């Protein structure tokens, strides 16, 4: 098993180092001025209303308008509680044995319309998000309400202090507050207005949003960090056609690619055409995974679910579908892309990570034990979203399943129907992609594996695992917590709750004159553009 894994990792390391050599020196003195032309693959799906959306198509272009309380250090690719730095909060402090999280806010911060920023805005935002009894406003869609389920109250004792009172200790809360999905809204404007316009505190102010065409920002002259931003303007261009987007980047009409957009093949083509382009392989926080409805036959049978997990050759999928642009891993991203993932050694103990032929034999045995007779394949219907990245993965999986005696027919589901179908459980087996707003066990495990969660599409529910999830959530010792998180990942993979096939890699591309834009191993958390400058 190891002999097969090592060459793969070796090749990946070579590719990584080849691209890393092209990384720009970040030690030059920043220059002010200039405009950055940035790629968008579609229009802003919910305007600037990040709290009503869960797509990078909203977060990436809307981020420069807004600020968080805290953020992941823009200069560091890896994200963890250790890389969190202040944003609207200058300092923060855990108190009362992690039961209270206190933020000390910056003074003299102004909203783009001139109103002063204060703790009222923070309280307004989080009361709205957690839909507390005193919530002053309601979002029409609130996808991350569960992130704040442990917050008992948000208090604003004075204009520059905010206290989060928790029901129990939860160190993860800080990471979720640092996520690109957690900007602070202004209390004096209706939340609905963010769908069409943006009153933020961010380094850039919206100049014009031409629907379906472009979004223009200009520098916020009153930004609370003196001398920032460096750039005069940002110009986001919506280009729907992938070939045209790549051509625009190659021709220099765009300076920055869209996160998660550049495949390995495209990166190699770009590098060949324009050798000076800076291409950085980074994690995307997006996994390919298999959802199986554990409430319906045949996947209510653990042996059948495990057979599916054993049957799929993860490394084969990474090579065939992503041309090598992925890494194997369980629920959490492995190092160096995340901090909670399982090591290669641990992964080798899980279903589907061994020698493909052995794994397939094991799958056949499990199917036989489940009553599937040789020569009489198990016929199932596999659903996937009618989007190329989903369909490519699903096609590979179907071929793998066929080799062990599961004949799956592919049914493509339109985006409009996908989540409703999955939430209702109107499917047997599905090829799915899952993005995580933050590399954090609470954000992932509660959302995708907790009993009763609307996004637990497999309906997996194990009381013991729930207890383990709650336990890790309260664990204050990072080492102990990591061990607990790894144990949980092992459990859920062994139950084939939602077998993860790989973690996708993006080849984030910028022109060499773009400085200080460090792509993170999570596409959602590096779009503020506060420190980015142009050496053009």
């Amino acid at each position, binding site marked *: 098993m190891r002999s097969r894994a090592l060459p793969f990792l070796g090749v990946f390391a070579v590719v990584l180092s080849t691209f890393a050599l092209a990384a720009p020196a970040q030690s030059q003195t920043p220059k002010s001025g200039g405009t950055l032309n940035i790629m968008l693959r579609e229009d802003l799906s919910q305007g600037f209303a990040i709290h*009503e959306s869960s797509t990078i198509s909203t977060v990436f272009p809307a981020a420069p308008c807004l600020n968080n309380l805290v953020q992941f250090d823009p200069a560091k690719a890896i994200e963890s509680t250790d890389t969190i730095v202040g944003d609207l909060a200058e300092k923060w402090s855990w108190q009362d044995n992690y039961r209270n999280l206190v933020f000390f806010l910056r003074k003299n911060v102004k909203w783009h319309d001139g109103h002063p920023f204060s703790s009222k805005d923070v309280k307004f935002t989080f009361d709205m998000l957690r839909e507390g009894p005193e919530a002053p406003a309601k979002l029409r869609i609130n996808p991350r309400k569960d992130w704040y389920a442990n917050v008992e109250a948000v208090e604003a004792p004075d204009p520059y202090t905010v206290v989060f009172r928790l029901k129990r200790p939860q160190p993860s809360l800080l990471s979720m507050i640092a996520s690109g999905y957690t900007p602070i809204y202004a209390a004096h404007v209706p939340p609905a207005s963010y769908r069409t316009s943006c009153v933020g505190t961010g380094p850039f102010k919206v100049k014009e949003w031409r629907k*379906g065409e472009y979004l223009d920002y200009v520098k916020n002259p009153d930004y609370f960090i003196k001398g920032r931003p460096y750039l005069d303007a940002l110009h986001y261009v919506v*280009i729907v*056609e992938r070939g*045209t987007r790549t051509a625009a980047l190659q021709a220099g009409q765009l300076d920055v690619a869209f996160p998660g957009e550049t495949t390995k093949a495209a990166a190699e083509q770009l590098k060949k055409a324009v050798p000076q382009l800076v291409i950085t392989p980074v994690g995307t926080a997006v996994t390919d995974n298999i959802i199986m409805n554990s409430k319906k036959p045949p996947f209510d049978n653990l042996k059948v679910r495990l057979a599916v997990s054993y049957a799929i050759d993860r490394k084969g999928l990474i090579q065939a579908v992503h041309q090598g642009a992925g890494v194997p891993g369980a629920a959490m991203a492995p190092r160096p892309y995340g901090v909670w993932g399982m090591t290669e050694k641990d992964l080798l103990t899980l279903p589907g990570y061994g020698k493909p032929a052995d794994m397939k034999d094991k799958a056949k045995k499990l199917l036989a034990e489940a009553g599937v007779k040789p020569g009489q394949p198990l016929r199932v219907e596999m659903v996937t979203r009618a989007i190329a990245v989903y369909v490519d993965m699903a096609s590979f999986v179907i071929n793998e399943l066929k080799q062990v005696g599961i004949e799956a027919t592919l049914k493509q589901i339109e*985006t*409009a129907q996908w*989540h*409703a179908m999955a939430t209702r459980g109107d499917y047997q087996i599905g090829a799915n992609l899952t993005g995580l707003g933050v590399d954090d066990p609470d954000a992932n495990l509660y959302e995708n594996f907790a009993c009763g969660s*609307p996004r637990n599409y497999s309906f997996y529910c194990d009381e013991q695992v729930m207890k383990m999830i709650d336990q890790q959530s309260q664990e204050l010792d990072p080492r102990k917590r990591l061990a607990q998180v790894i144990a949980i990942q092992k459990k859920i993979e062994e139950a084939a709750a939602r077998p993860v096939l790989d973690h996708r890699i993006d080849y984030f591309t910028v022109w060499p004159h773009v400085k200080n834009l460090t792509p993170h191993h999570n596409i959602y958390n590096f779009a503020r553009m506060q420190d980015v400058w142009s050496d053009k």
Partner: protein
Amino acid sequence: MKTYVLQRLVIALLTLLGMSVVIFVLLRLAPGDIVDILFATAGYISPSEKQALMKELGIDRPYVIQYLDWLRQVVTGDLGKSYRYDLPAWEVIRPLVPVTLELAALSMVFAVLIGVPAGVVSAVRQDTTLDYLLRVFSLAGLSMPAFWLGMVIILGLVSWFAWIPPLTYVSPTKDLKLHLIQFLLPALAVGYRSSALIMRITRSSLLEVMREDYIRTAWAKGQTGRIVIWRHALKNALLPVVTVIGIEFAFLIGGLVVTETVFNLPGVARFLVQAILWRDYPVVQNLVMFTAIVVILSNLIVDMLYGVLDPRVRYGG
């Protein structure tokens, strides 16, 4: 003439009414609605929140009420509100219309400028090397989809010259030269295909006319080739050509989807596809109605032109 135009306008109104029913029903038959899409972008679904949102957008009402409401809005000049952008639909649609009209018109100009002379030359030089070359040229145009040609142009330009036309719309009032550069290539890509059709129609129509007695008479009278072909033959061969031009123009209004997408032009067709994907009913319904109006008007104009080109054509009362 006036009676004929009035008759046509009444028929046009009835056609539009029929179209409105068709598009309304087809949109509702498509699986999912804007609320499903909004929840899809949020990555979850909540039946109670879904119901509240449907009520907020008014799509929980019976279809008949929704349809009548839309008709009332159209008649009063209010096109409703875009679900996706939370803005008046007209505000969203307005900037798109001139882009598509200009691209379609420019494409037709190229198509006529290339297609008609090529068709004439091909007919006059029938069965010569030049005729064969022109026929191959036209066949290639018909065989190559405009979007494929567009993509080849983009990729060729970026590979050879490291340049592509501007990908953000440049207004003619801001920079006319850049504006024309932006429209030139997509118009050529689309115009080439249309020119092929026009060339073939012109050729066959002209060949037919050239065999008429009055053309033989003109030759016998000793008139020059230019007069015989351009004044006598071509004028009479133009009726089917004009028909094709009208049909092509109407087709282009809704058929430029991929060309607008490849060249990133913010036109009606590209936006319509996005609006359909988002189930943005007010935008889709009104854009389709706009396309239908253009198709009907271009057909009417073509019919009017028949009378100008051929004095024998009379419009009945």
